């Protein structure tokens, strides 16, 4: 039953896509109501699924897709497709449907009058479909397929206004940068498949537990699969696509860059979490940390309202990844969910502002909007507080658990790893600062652009309703009735930590020994662990203990840094105690460094792209001089020996390819000429063919 409902949820958006792309133009209002209605239905169904899925429930439907029996030298080749509904996918279903429905509704006004209105809604539909596919699948292969589909559809959405060079460039960049990560992802999948002969998560975990994939290969597989997340979730060093992707329509940014596509990477790591070895986890943690820190520093100086949000997204994604890396599984996923709501709210709020300001995006030209856009302001402020980690918000809960997790991790592993909590707290402080800076510059103070300001009106209802809904969801009550401790909320109970399946030698010290009896008790292990909440209590006992101890210090510290950040923002932009410009002047090198986004794009452009170009130049030189020399030499000899054989082609490889091409074309031409149009010639050929066959085969 739940499986059928989930299939319905999956395919309804696809239906919306098909109807809208083919018949959208003919429907009233180009069918936007259809897409929106479908998504709202999906949302309802998703809630139904969530309510009917217990914390330890697993509904799995498997369809045998390809069965090739035994392949020589490999074993049975069998590929299953499957749907898996468990706590993770149930929650993600709701999140994706919720944000998508909000974006649909919001767009009815925001995109009104666009020339490709129906196509826009169609794209939203197919994008939602692909994202839901990622969420619902129970195996890596299907996940990869939908992963690519998400990449493709996000390309369409980011480049929706492809008439302009900006979106064109941005969509290409997003696509290409994602491909780099996907290569790693695919390689990882293949490694896993070769060792475990399966794509299905539960089978893979069982096989790893049985020791079929260990050692360096296991770590490599983990890191390579994580590469997919690096691309999709915009982690360092592939984070460069996300800020540029702001060229797309703003509701799209809310959908793709708050809750769905970028969350897919985090979701992937969550799903594959049990197979990550200690080394892979450490790698993940540091990537997350670096991402969180760097993008927080960049966000401080950005002046485009969407760019600030973009870098803040990258930074928050870094937090989630880092949380998973340090083993704070629940906290990472929790942050994914809370962040989805308030970040979508922020993006849609930004959309509302941009709509009101007639496509003005520079915050230096805004100011004072508070009075004119009451609802937008309040919702935006609410979401900002959540993102900054102000108490009583959902963001406070989730960020606090992450920070506690990093502290616990540092405490347990010690040494250099203390840098993780230090930088994490710093980033959290910066987050509070740049978010309040954004609020002050946009909504407070004097309007900078009087002319535009006069025309500003509050956005219409279809735009404000999603804002209100999403901002309300930023309150703590939806996740835990205790405003300072998430651990006693339903969420932590619903998504308990999972048991790792990697061999003991490849676990962190604090993971060792503590769970041995559980592993034994559950053999043969065919499912992921953590089904029994009592067992989970004892799982990770060392880590859980440490987190517990770190909870209050972390909370205090995080309150402190957030407070400091907010205070600074007040000092700079509200009370004007200091001049931001003056400070920027003082630390000019740092400022420009941040403003220019750490020169990542320039670095890539300068070193990698240029380097590649130079490499190709070098190859061309090599080609021209050396290979050509050899070839020309050979040609010279050939020419000498048989005059007039003609020149060889410019380069060897080209020549070979062309040669094959020409051979094909040549034979094509010959065979084509055989087709004389004269029936009797044909018949003579037939007889000739029979004779030929006779003489070939009579000797056999």
């Amino acid at each position, binding site marked *: 039953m739940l499986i059928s409902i989930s299939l319905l949820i999956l395919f309804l958006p696809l239906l919306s896509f098909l109807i809208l792309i083919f018949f959208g133009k003919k429907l009233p209002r180009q069918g936007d109501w259809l897409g929106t209605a479908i998504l709202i239905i999906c949302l309802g169904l998703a809630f139904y699924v969530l309510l009917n899925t217990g914390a330890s429930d697993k509904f799995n439907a498997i369809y045998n897709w390809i069965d090739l029996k035994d392949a020589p030298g490999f074993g049975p080749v069998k590929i299953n497709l499957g749907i898996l509904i468990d706590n993770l996918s149930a929650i993600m279903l709701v999140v994706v449907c919720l944000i998508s429905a909000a974006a649909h509704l919001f767009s009815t006004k925001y995109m009104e009058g666009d020339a490709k209105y129906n196509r826009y809604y169609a794209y939203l539909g197919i994008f939602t479909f692909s994202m839901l596919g990622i969420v619902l699948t129970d195996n890596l292969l299907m996940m990869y397929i939908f992963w690519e589909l998400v990449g493709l559809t996000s390309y369409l959405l980011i480049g929706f206004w492809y008439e302009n060079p900006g979106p064109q460039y941005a969509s290409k960049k997003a696509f290409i940068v994602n491909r780099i990560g996907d290569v790693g992802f695919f390689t990882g999948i293949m490694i896993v498949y070769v060792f475990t002969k399966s794509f299905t998560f539960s089978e893979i975990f069982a096989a790893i537990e049985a020791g079929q994939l260990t050692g360096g290969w296991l770590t490599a597989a983990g890191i390579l699969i994580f590469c997919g997340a690096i691309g999709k979730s915009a982690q360092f060093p592939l984070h460069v696509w996300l800020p540029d992707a702001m060229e797309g329509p703003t509701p799209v940014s809310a959908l793709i860059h708050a809750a769905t596509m970028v969350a897919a990477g985090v979701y992937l790591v969550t799903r594959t979490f049990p197979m990550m070895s200690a080394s892979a986890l450490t790698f993940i943690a540091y990537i997350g940390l670096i991402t969180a820190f760097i993008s927080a520093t960049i966000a401080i100086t950005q002046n485009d309202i969407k760019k600030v949000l973009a870098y803040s997204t990258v930074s928050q994604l870094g937090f989630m990844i880092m949380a998973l890396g340090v083993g704070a599984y629940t906290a990472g996923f929790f942050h994914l969910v809370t962040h989805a709501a308030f970040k979508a709210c922020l993006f849609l709020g930004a959309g509302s502002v941009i709509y009101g300001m007639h496509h003005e995006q520079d915050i230096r030209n805004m100011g004072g909007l508070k009075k004119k856009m009451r609802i937008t302001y309040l919702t935006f402020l609410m979401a900002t507080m959540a993102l900054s980690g102000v108490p009583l918000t959902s963001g406070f809960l989730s960020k606090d658990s992450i920070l506690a997790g990093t502290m616990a991790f540092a405490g347990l592993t010690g040494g250099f790893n203390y840098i993780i909590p230090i930088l994490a707290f710093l980033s959290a402080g910066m987050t509070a600062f740049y978010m309040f800076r954004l609020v002050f510059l946009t909504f407070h103070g004097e309007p900078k652009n009087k002319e535009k300001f006069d025309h500003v009106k509050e956005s219409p209802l279809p735009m404000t309703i999603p804002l209100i809904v999403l901002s309300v969801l930023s309150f703590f009550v939806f996740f835990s009735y205790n405003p300072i401790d998430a651990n006693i909320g339903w969420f932590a109970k619903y998504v308990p930590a999972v048991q790792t399946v990697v061999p003991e030698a490849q676990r962190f010290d604090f993971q060792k020994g503590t769970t041995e009896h559980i592993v034994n008790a559950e053999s043969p292990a065919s499912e992921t662990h953590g089904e029994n909440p009592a067992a989970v209590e004892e799982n990770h006992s060392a880590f859980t203990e440490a987190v517990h101890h770190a909870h209050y210090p972390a909370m205090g510290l995080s309150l402190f840094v957030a407070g400091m950040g907010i205070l600074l923002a007040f000092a700079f932009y509200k009370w004007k105690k200091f001049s931001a410009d003056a400070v920027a002047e003082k630390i000019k090198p740092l400022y420009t460094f941040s403003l220019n986004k750490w020169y990542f794009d320039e670095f890539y452009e300068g070193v990698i792209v240029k380097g590649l170009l130079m490499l190709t130049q070098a190859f061309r030189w090599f080609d021209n001089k050396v290979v050509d020399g050899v070839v020309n030499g050979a040609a010279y000899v050939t020419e000498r020996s048989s005059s007039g054989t003609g020149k060889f082609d410019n380069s060897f490889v080209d020549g070979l390819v062309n040669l094959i091409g020409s051979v094909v074309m040549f034979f094509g031409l010959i065979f*084509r*000429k055989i*087709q*004389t*149009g*004269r*029936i*009797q010639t044909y*018949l*003579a050929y037939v*007889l000739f063919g029979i004779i030929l066959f006779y003489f070939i085969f009579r000797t056999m």
Partner: protein
Amino acid sequence: MPNFQIGLTHFLVISSLLFGLGLFAVVTRRNAIMILMGIELILNAANINFIAFNKYGQLGVDGQVISIFVIILAAAEAVIALAIVLNIYNNFKTVNADEIDNLKE
């Protein structure tokens, strides 16, 4: 002294010769009706085979029944082919197969 006793082989040689002559007509004669005559020769050759094998293999009269069907089919095919040739003549004012080569390559 060669064996002049008439046997299966004699009939088969005749059928092979008919078959060869039919093929020759099909491949070399320009007139479409001549080609049809060639096809008839081929079918007759096959019929001789059926009946000869039938007699010398002691196979009842199955071969003869088969040859009846072949004759029926030959007639049907000739009818259709001639209708098509007439139609060609109406359109092209010629029935020379080698001049009708607009569809090619």
